């Protein structure tokens, strides 16, 4: 193995390789910052370009895009309260309040270094313990997925703020939005009103744009009229001054990285869930949970560390088994196959040079997005000083063009508008929006896997319930759910 790593290193330090990584990282940061551009889309559209490159170079570029875009969604979340990618929704909860307090440089630095650490730890896992982790990931069947979704939903109490009912209502509405479209097993159309654009459900990115961009613009107009201004960045310090603060949160970094890697290796769960769960974990184990949501550094670090730890995690089943865990890696699989490479054991022996140089390039990408991101962020910080009368229309135009571009469909602009209306209503009545995103992300999984679990035991409900307790992993998740619920209720009672 070590000779393979050495072989990878010799391949890595070539001009074309490093240029490809740098190009991928810069492109990825841009893709992540702009809501409406997703890593999936970026990678899918760049694959035809990479196939004229040597495989190692092409893959390194795609990897750079993937890692950098997962990180940089935090920049727009922190500065504008609009998540650039679904993974940044949990970052926004504490990142934007920090900006409001005039600590945007600090928030950005925390997010950047957290992402870097999470990413690096997950690539270490990919490099050294991928095969056993991949085998473990296959043991997740429908009952486990169903319980995992339930466990994710219990996180809502951590995202709810003062009134837990409001958070739960938001979560249930999010779950409802996820049921729009065809039933995952029967194909029956629900709430579609014969509009073909709704048959596949509402696209997550389109709904995120609506849910955050539109209320933010409305808020800008209101505060503009009242003459209220967001505080400028008052701590104009060097972002590297905050590196010790991040390193100091050792426990948080390790916990969030582990959560991220675990979520990453389980196919079909994804970056945003990793962020939410790590945020929840940080809040639960914090001595001052009431500070979360008001600009707490641990929240930003947890969410960002975890969502970048997911990236390495998702590559584990991808490279060792050829099993993609999320839409991005599904597209990445296409990018690997296009070079005639076959994921699996063969990839690590016959094509060891390519696969090891790819893994090592991920280390470089994870480190390289730090300067690129911080440089970009330095200029993006000025966005909050741009007059609202210019910023607001620009965000709206981006929201409209971005929602159109996801599927090349004008109908998606109207879907974005509908979700934007929901977002406005929620903001107006002071309802947290993060639980709604969580519901939207987990809904299809909860519903689909429940029906699938039942289909697998031929509709026998008792057999299904028995499975939940007797299958080892599902029993563990069941216990976690119970603990999470119990803790949430206890916290709620203590607060009242």
């Amino acid at each position, binding site marked *: 193995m070590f000779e393979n790593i050495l072989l990878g290193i010799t391949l890595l330090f070539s001009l074309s390789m490093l240029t490809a990584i740098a190009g991928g990282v810069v492109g990825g940061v*841009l893709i992540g910052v*702009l809501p409406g*551009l997703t890593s999936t*889309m*970026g990678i899918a*559209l760049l694959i035809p370009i990479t196939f004229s490159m040597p495989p190692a170079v092409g893959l390194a570029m795609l990897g750079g895009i993937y890692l950098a875009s997962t990180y940089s969604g935090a920049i727009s979340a922190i500065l504008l309260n609009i998540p650039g990618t679904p993974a940044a929704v949990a970052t926004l909860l504490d990142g934007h309040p920090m900006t409001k307090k005039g600590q945007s440089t600090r928030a950005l630095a925390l997010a950047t270094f957290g992402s870097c650490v999470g990413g690096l730890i997950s690539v270490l896992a990919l490099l050294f313990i991928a095969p056993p982790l991949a085998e473990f990931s296959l043991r997740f069947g429908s009952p486990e997925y169903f319980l995992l979704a339930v466990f994710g939903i219990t996180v809502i109490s951590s995202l709810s703020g003062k*009134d837990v*009912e*409001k958070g*739960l*209502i938001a979560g*249930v*509405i999010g*779950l*409802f939005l996820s*049921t729009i479209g065809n*039933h995952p097993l*029967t194909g*029956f159309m*629900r*709430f579609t009103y014969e509009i073909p654009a709704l048959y596949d459900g509402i696209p997550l990115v389109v709904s995120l744009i609506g849910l955050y961009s*539109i209320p933010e*613009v*409305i*808020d800008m*107009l*209101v505060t*503009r*009229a*009242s003459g209220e201004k967001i505080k400028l960045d008052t701590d104009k310090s060097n972002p590297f001054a905050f590196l010790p603060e991040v390193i100091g949160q050792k426990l948080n970094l390790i916990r969030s990285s582990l959560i991220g890697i675990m979520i990453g290796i389980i196919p079909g769960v994804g970056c945003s869930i990793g962020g939410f769960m790590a945020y929840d974990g940080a809040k639960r184990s914090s001595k001052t949970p009431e500070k979360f949501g008001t600009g707490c550094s641990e929240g930003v670090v947890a969410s960002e560390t975890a969502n970048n730890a997911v990236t390495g995690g998702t590559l584990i089943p991808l490279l060792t088994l050829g099993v993609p865990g999320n839409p991005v890696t599904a597209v990445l699989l296409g990018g690997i196959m296009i070079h005639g490479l076959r994921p699996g054991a063969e990839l690590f022996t016959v094509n060891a040079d390519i696969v090891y140089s790819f893994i090592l390039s991920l280390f470089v990408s994870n480190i390289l997005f730090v300067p690129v991101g911080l440089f970009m962020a330095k200029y993006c910080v000025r966005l909050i000083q741009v*007059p*609202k*009368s*210019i910023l*607001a*229309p*620009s965000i*709206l*135009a981006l*929201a*409209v*063009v*971005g929602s*159109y*571009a996801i599927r*090349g469909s*004008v109908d998606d*602009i*109207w879907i974005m*508008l509908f979700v*934007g*209306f929901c977002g*406005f209503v929620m903001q*107006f*009545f*002071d*309802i947290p929006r993060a639980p709604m995103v969580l519901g939207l992300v987990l*809904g299809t999984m909860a*519903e689909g896997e429940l*029906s699938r679990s039942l289909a697998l035991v031929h509709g026998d409900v008792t057999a299904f319930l028995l499975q939940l307790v007797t299958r080892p992993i599902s029993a563990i998740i069941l216990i976690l759910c119970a603990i999470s619920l119990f803790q949430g209720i206890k916290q709620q009672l203590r607060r009242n």
Partner: protein
Amino acid sequence: MSFETNRQDRLISRLNKDRVFASGTLILAAYLGYQAFSYPVESAFFPRVLSVLLGLLALLLIIRLSLRQRKERSVGKTIETDASTLSAEWRAIRSAGMVFTSIIIYGLLLTLVNYELASIIYLAAMMLIFGFRRPVITGSISVGLTVLLYTIFFHLLGVSRPESLLFM
């Protein structure tokens, strides 16, 4: 005008905001439940459960709100909403109306004329409406942003522009 705002103020202060939300949620739950129960059970088990859950949560919120109100009344506090937050609320609703209308117009414009023209017109008009009154800057930003978005989405990422009726 002053009469109207006065009436609006009274309307909102009578209906506590949270209670409006809770009742709205209850109505939503009833509608969604009505829909969900009209679908076959094997395809709508999940939405059915959710609609019941949503209704229960809304009821719970209503009960908690009235308990809290009673408690506060017994302490002698009266719930008064001060005028400045009220006008802020109406301003939010008005701004929202404007934003939604503008997006509808922009979306229709995109399918009527083409992306470039629609975007430049939309950006310039919105900046003007939102109170930015420097024509040269407005013009250059509208054109610049349109070109930037064009480059990223339609040139680099190769997404096709929306099809429009009038121009290509």
